[in-house]
């Protein structure tokens, strides 16, 4: 057994074991770092498979992606710091069975199929080939992926922005002044739309009623603005 084989088996075990631990750990932040380890192991296997560009790109991309993931994990965390046991699952047996069936089925197909053996020739300039392909014959596919990512960026901003289609897009924001220290440029969205407005509007959530305990008369969230509930 060569060194490459040993490295492959070690990385495979790492990828699968860390992948499993993702759903067995108590802390959601730890889960995202375990997934990162799994991805890094797969990226290193790609290096062994003579795909250096893809392997390194996977490692870099996943390092950044899992950092973002960890941030979201903190935002939506059920169980801070993993101090309590966490088992937030539904339809557990069905899911276990589905996962096992998927694995056994795919592995069985793998084992009964005769695959051609035609490995990459040693010294083949795979990265140069990829570059020529990306900007040559498959340029349309590559550019379509780029446009898809642009559409994704637009869609994410629309979906996650505060107002979107449910109110004025600039509610609660103030445009910067044209001269330093001057009046805000353009339309003034709301009287007193400073940070107070922001905090209250967020914490009120779906309340439709103006809360009189905030004596500033400027506690309208998006709902208050929509309903025309102005008070000065």
């Amino acid at each position: 057994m060569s060194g490459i084989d040993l490295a492959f088996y070690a990385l495979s075990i790492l990828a699968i074991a860390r992948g499993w631990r993702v759903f067995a750990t108590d802390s959601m932040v730890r889960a995202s770092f375990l997934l990162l380890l799994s991805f890094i192991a797969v990226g290193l296997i790609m290096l062994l498979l003579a795909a250096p560009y893809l392997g390194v790109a996977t490692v870099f991309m996943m390092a950044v992606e899992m950092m973002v993931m960890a941030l979201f994990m903190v935002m939506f965390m059920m169980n801070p710091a993993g101090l309590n046991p966490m088992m937030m699952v539904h339809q557990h047996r069905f899911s276990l069975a589905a996962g096992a069936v998927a694995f056994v089925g795919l592995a069985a197909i793998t084992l009964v199929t005769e695959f051609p053996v035609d490995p990459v020739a040693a010294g083949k300039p795979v990265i140069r080939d990829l570059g020529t392909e990306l900007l040559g014959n498959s340029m349309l596919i590559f550019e379509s992926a780029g446009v898809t990512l642009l559409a994704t960026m637009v869609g994410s901003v629309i979906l996650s922005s505060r107002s979107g289609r449910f109110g004025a897009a600039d509610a609660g924001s103030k445009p910067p002044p044209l001269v330093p220290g001057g009046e805000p440029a353009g339309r003034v969205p709301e009287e007193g739309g400073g940070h107070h407005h922001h905090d209250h509007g967020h914490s009120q959530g779906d309340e439709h009623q103006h809360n009189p305990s905030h004596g500033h008369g400027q506690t309208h969230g998006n709902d208050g603005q929509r309903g025309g509930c102005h008070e000065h």
Partner: protein
Amino acid sequence: MSIEAILIVASALIGIGLYGALSQQSFVMLMMGLELMLNGVLLAAVGFWSLTAAGVPEGQLLAIVTMAVMAVEMSIGFALVVAVYRKRQADVTEGITTLKH
């Protein structure tokens, strides 16, 4: 290191990811299951490219497209999670029942 071994590892990753995507209640954990499945797909694609296709450039292109799918899934997924939380204060799948029946 044979194509069979690589595909079995990829199957294991896909199986674990499917389990996670079906069983987890939290939206973000559910998305980690989807990511793990795409991880297996990526590994299988690179394995086929490297060991059975003599390194034709289109195989690497498929892997790049898979990576783009991963990025799209992450981005739109998190945007949806944020949007749902903002509208419904829900961060688990049980919190949304309006599409159930």
